[in-house]
């Protein structure tokens, strides 16, 4: 008996080691792709396989990065864009969930507005940009409005669908205790929709960046979107690529934060 127990323990250890090895390999290849991509880019640019004026090179971007950090402009532009994105993203998520709750509360309202929601969702929201700028002024407010509107409708639709699909038996349980409609919403409908809300958060992270950057294109005053459009106008593609890399980096971090919230919020299912 002891013999077999030992054998099982050995097998288990081997299994854990294999799992770790697998994880290490995945990490290794991820890192390899990263390093290979930037090295190849650098080499291709230096040897003029690609046009350095258009595609720049990691080393030039890095030099510009250091310079922009030193003069403080990158930090301020990034800060502005990041702030706008986070506000737009939060507004879209909360307002979208709130509208979804309204639709759930008033079933007739949801029937009435259903076709309008579908059309609004299909419409390219960035096309509303010029109207926002005229109506709200060329600044912070218009850009946040862009960052919000771009994911608001889809959030409303997706969250409302998940509200509707809550297992009616949970509501039945609550109703047998005499629960009010609000209690049903608070105890069953909202918590059981958390997984869906989180997954819309993941989509909204990306969408909000798009909305805000397009907003900054149009307003052209400050922010990473402004840096991109400015770089394009003066044909400084190093600046464009630097802004893009910063956005990619920040979007990754926001995504990680959403993942962390997800693990905290829905650990028990």
């Amino acid at each position, binding site marked *: 008996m002891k013999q077999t127990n030992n054998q099982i323990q050995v097998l288990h250890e081997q299994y854990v080691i294999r799992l770790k090895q697998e994880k290490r390999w995945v990490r290794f290849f991820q890192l390899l792709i990263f390093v290979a991509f930037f090295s190849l880019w650098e080499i291709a640019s230096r040897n003029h396989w690609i046009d350095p004026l258009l595609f720049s090179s990691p080393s030039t971007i890095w030099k510009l990065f250091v310079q922009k950090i030193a003069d403080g402009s990158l930090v301020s532009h990034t800060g502005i864009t990041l702030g706008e994105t986070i506000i737009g993203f939060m507004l879209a998520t909360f307002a979208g969930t709130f509208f979804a709750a309204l639709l759930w509360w008033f079933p007739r309202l949801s029937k009435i507005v259903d076709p309008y929601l579908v059309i609004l969702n299909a419409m390219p929201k960035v096309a509303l940009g010029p109207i926002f700028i005229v109506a709200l002024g060329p600044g912070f407010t218009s850009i946040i409005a862009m960052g919000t509107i771009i994911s608001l409708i889809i959030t409303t639709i997706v969250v409302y669908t998940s509200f509707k699909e809550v*297992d009616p*038996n*949970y509501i*039945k*349980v*609550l*109703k*047998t*205790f*005499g*629960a009010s409609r609000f*209690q049903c919403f608070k*105890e*069953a409908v909202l*918590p*059981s929709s*958390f997984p869906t809300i989180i997954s819309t958060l993941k989509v909204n992270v990306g969408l909000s960046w798009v909305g805000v950057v397009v907003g900054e294109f149009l307003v052209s005053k400050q922010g990473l979107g402004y840096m991109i459009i400015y770089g394009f106008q003066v044909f400084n593609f190093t600046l464009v690529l630097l802004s893009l890399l910063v956005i990619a980096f920040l979007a990754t971090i926001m995504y990680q934060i959403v993942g962390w919230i997800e693990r905290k919020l*829905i650990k*028990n*299912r």
Partner: protein
Amino acid sequence: MNFLVVDHVSHTYFTEKAAVTALENVSLEIEKGEFVSFLGPSGCGKTTLLSIIAALIQPTKGSVILEGEKVHSIHPSVGYMLQQDYLFPWKTIEENILLGLTIMGMNSNEAKQRALDLLSRIGLKGVETYYPNQLSGGMRQRAALVRTLATDPKILLLDEPFSALDYQTKLKLEELVWKTLKEYKKTALLVTHDIGEAIAMSDRIFLFSAKPGRLVRTFIVPKELRNLSPFHSRNHTTFSELFQFIWKELDSLEANE
């Protein structure tokens, strides 16, 4: 006076295409402390009748009278148990069993303590901080029973609460529910399509026919079985006699369709 009276209740469901009569002219009376079963094939409106008694739906015709008062809206004197436990997966067992009390605003410390005591008496001590997915099916259904009993309802409506469990767990749980309800002197109404379960647990059995749901017969379970717990009742000779009898009755109902 009768504890619960179902007075000429009919119910029809309306859809765009048709009107389906689920219950037709059902009348019955239940005494305080009695354990009765609604037995019948699927589609006989058992669950509809249970929902009407719980005031989850209003009958098209007729009325339900509980302790001399007409049942209008959902009232705390009725406890309802569903086919599955429907414990809320994002709440701990403690939060789950106190749910009814919280909703009704009766969450005094004594009421909470009573619910927790009941939980440990039912063999679930020490799982208060667990989440439902950490418990087995039988344990979850027991926790659901505690949740239902926590609000101290006068009548329990059991809507096939054992049907989703494996046979062994089901027998154990029947035993536990029966004993608990007898101990607390609760009136109970069990919906089932399991003849054995109906005989083993109840004092009276109401047999329903399907499409439309009608009350066709009432069986009184013999005294010698009534006083036995479900498990012992199943081993009694009278049990199989009654089983055969009800079986034939159900069979002839289906043949008449």
